[in-house]
C-alpha cells in the first residue's frame, strides 16, 4: 500500500515539469517552430529562481525573475530563429549550451559546485488538502504537492481551450499549417510564432522553478537531465494535442516513478532502472510513428 501510494505520488511529481514543458512547447510545435531549447529554458528557470532564493529568500521575486529571464531567452530564440530566419535547431542547441555555461560561470564565481537552499524549508510549499489527503489512493495523487504542480494540471485545460477555442490558438495553428496562406489573409505570422515560443518559455520557467526550488531546494547544472527532450518526444507522440501530449508526459512520469520506486528491490541492477524511462519514450515514439504512417501510401520520404 505504501509502495502504491509512493508510486502514484511520484508519478505526479515527475510528470509535472514535463507536462509544463509539453503544454508550453506544443504551441511552438503547432506554429511549426521546433523549440528544442525547452531544456535550456527550463534549466534557466531553475537556475535563476534558485539563485534569487539563495540571495533574497523572496519566492515571488525568484519566480518573477526566473520567468523574466527565460522570456529573454525566448526572445533571443525567436529573434535569431524567426526574424533572422536562422536554423532553429542550431539556435536551440546554442541556448541549451549557453544556459549551463552561464550557470557554471556564476557558480564558479560563488565558489560552489551547486546552489543549496539550506535556509528554505521545502515542505512548507506542499499544499495538503484537508479531508482529501486522508483518502488512501486519491490522497497521494491529489494532495501534498507544491503549487506549480496544480498549476501544471490546470494548465492542460487552460491551454487546450486557448488552442482550440480562441482566435489566438486557431491563428497559431494556421501559421503552422500553411504560413504563406496565413500571411496572404493578413495574419501577422511573425507575431504568432513569437507568442508561441514565449508561451513555451513561460511554462519552461515554471517547470524550472518546480524542479529546483519547490521540490529539492537545490540547483545543479545537470538537473534537467533531458526532460526538455522528453517533452519534445511527448509532443511528437501526441502531435501537439494538449491532452494527448500531456498523457504521454504522464506516461514518462509513470515510468520514472516505477524506476525510482522499484529500484530499491533490484539490488545491484538498480542503476539500469534509470534507463527505462528513456527507452520507453523511444519505444512509444516508434509505435506512434508506425501507426501514423501505416496508411500513408505516398512514395517519397518525409517526416
Amino acid at each position: 500500500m505504501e509502495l502504491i501510494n509512493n508510486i502514484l505520488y511520484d508519478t505526479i511529481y515527475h510528470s509535472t515539469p514535463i507536462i509544463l514543458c509539453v503544454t508550453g512547447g506544443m504551441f511552438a510545435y503547432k506554429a511549426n517552430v521546433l523549440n528544442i531549447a525547452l531544456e535550456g529554458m527550463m534549466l534557466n528557470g531553475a537556475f535563476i529562481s534558485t539563485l534569487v532564493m539563495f540571495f533574497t529568500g523572496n519566492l515571488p521575486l525568484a519566480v518573477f525573475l526566473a520567468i523574466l529571464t527565460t522570456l529573454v531567452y525566448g526572445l533571443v530564440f525567436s529573434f535569431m530563429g524567426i526574424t533572422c530566419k536562422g536554423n532553429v535547431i542550431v539556435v536551440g542547441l546554442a541556448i541549451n549550451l549557453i544556459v549551463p555555461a552561464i550557470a557554471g560561470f556564476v557558480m564558479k564565481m560563488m565558489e560552489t559546485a551547486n546552489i543549496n537552499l539550506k535556509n528554505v524549508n521545502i515542505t512548507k510549499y506542499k499544499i495538503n488538502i484537508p479531508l482529501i489527503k486522508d483518502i488512501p489512493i486519491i490522497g497521494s495523487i491529489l494532495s501534498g504537492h507544491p503549487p506549480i504542480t496544480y498549476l501544471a494540471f490546470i494548465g492542460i485545460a487552460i491551454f487546450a481551450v486557448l488552442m482550440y477555442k480562441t482566435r489566438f490558438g486557431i491563428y497559431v495553428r494556421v501559421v503552422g499549417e500553411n504560413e504563406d496562406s496565413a500571411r496572404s489573409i493578413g495574419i501577422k505570422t511573425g507575431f504568432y510564432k513569437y507568442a508561441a515560443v514565449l508561451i513555451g518559455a513561460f511554462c519552461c520557467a515554471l517547470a524550472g522553478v518546480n524542479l529546483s526550488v519547490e521540490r529539492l531546494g537545490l540547483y545543479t547544472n545537470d538537473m534537467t537531465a533531458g526532460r526538455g527532450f522528453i517533452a519534445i518526444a511527448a509532443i511528437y507522440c501526441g502531435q501537439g494535442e494538449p491532452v494527448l501530449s500531456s498523457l504521454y508526459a504522464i506516461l514518462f512520469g509513470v515510468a520514472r516513478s516505477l524506476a525510482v520506486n522499484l529500484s530499491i528491490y533490484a539490488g545491484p541492477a538498480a542503476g539500469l532502472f534509470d534507463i527505462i524511462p528513456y527507452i520507453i519514450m523511444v519505444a512509444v515514439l516508434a509505435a506512434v510513428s508506425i501507426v501514423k504512417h501505416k496508411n500513408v501510401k505516398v512514395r517519397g520520404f518525409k517526416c
Partner: protein
Amino acid sequence: MNKKEGIIRNILNSILPIFLAFVIGGVVIACIGENPMETYWILLKKSFLSSTGFMNTLHYASPLILTGLAIAVTFKADLYNMGVEGQMLFGGFFAGIAGAYITGMNPFLHKFICFAAGVLCGMAFALIPALLKAKCRVNEMVVTLMLNYAMAKALEFLSTGVFRDLGSGYVATPIIKESAMFSRFGRSRLTMFFVIAVIVLIIMYVVMKKSKLGYEITAIGKNSEFAEATGMNVAKKTIVLMLLSGALAGLAGAGYMMSEQFKYTLNFSGTPGLGWDGMLIALLGGHSPGGILIAAIFYAALKTGSDNINMYTNVPKEIVALIQGLIILFLAVKFISERMDLKGRRLHNGTDQ
C-alpha cells in the same frame, strides 16, 4: 568572380560569429574585473605560440575532427544525428574494455582491435535511430537525444558495477594495457591518433566531394523528396549515413580512450562533451572537411586555452563554454546569408554596386 565572392562570404560568415562571441565574452570578463585582452592573450599564447602548446592543440583536435565529420555527414543530408555523443561514449567505453581485458597482444594488432571495437559499437548504437527513421519514420533527432541519456546511464551502470576497477578511488574502468596506448611525440601530448584522424579526414574529403555517396548526401540534404523521385533509395541511404556517422563517432571515442584518457570515467568526454563540440565544429566548418579541420584546431585551441585561463588568471574556465555557446548561436544566422545568396543573386544584379 562569383565563386571568389562565395568563399569570402563563407569566411566572413565563420569569422563574424567568433568575433561577436569573443566581444561578448570580453564584456563578461571585464564585468568581473579582469582584463579581457590579457585573458585572450594567454589563451592564444599557450595554444598556438609555443611548439608544445601547438602540438597539444593538435592532439585535442584529433577526436574533434572525427566527431565533427560524424555530425557533418548527417547534417549535410538533413538528418539530425544528435547521438554522436552517445555513440562516441559507447565506442570509447568498449575500446577501453578491449584495451584493458585483452592481454599479451602485439601492440599494432591490439590497437586495431580496440579501434574495431569502438567503431562497431558506434555503428551498432547508430543503427537503432537509423532503422527507426528509415523503416518507421521516427524523428531521428528526438530518438538520438534520448538515447544519449540512456547510454550515459547504461555506461555509468557498467562502470560502477561489472567493469569497475576496484583499485581506483573513484568510479573508473581498469586502465588499458600499454600495448593499446599510443605513445606521445616528445614532450607534447600529440600521438599517432592525430595522423589517423587526418587520414580519415582525407578519406572523408574524397567521399564527400568526389564520390557518388557524397553527391547523394548533398542531394538528399537539399530536397529528400526530389532525391527519392530521381531514384535514390533515401531510406537505405539514411541507414548508410547514420552508420557512417556512428563509425566516425566510435572511432573518435576509441582514439580518445587510447591517446588521452586510458580509462573510462564518468567524466570521460568532459563538458559539454566531444559530441557536442563536434556539432560546433561541423557548423563552424560549414560541413566541409577542410573547414572542419580548421574549426577543430581552433576549437581545440580554445580547449587547451581554457585550462590555461584557469591556471594563470582569475577568470573561470566556464567562460570558454559561454563563448562556445555564443558562437553556435551566431552561427545559426549564417544560414540566411546562404539563402540570401540564392535569392540575392537577383538582388545583386539590380541593387548591389
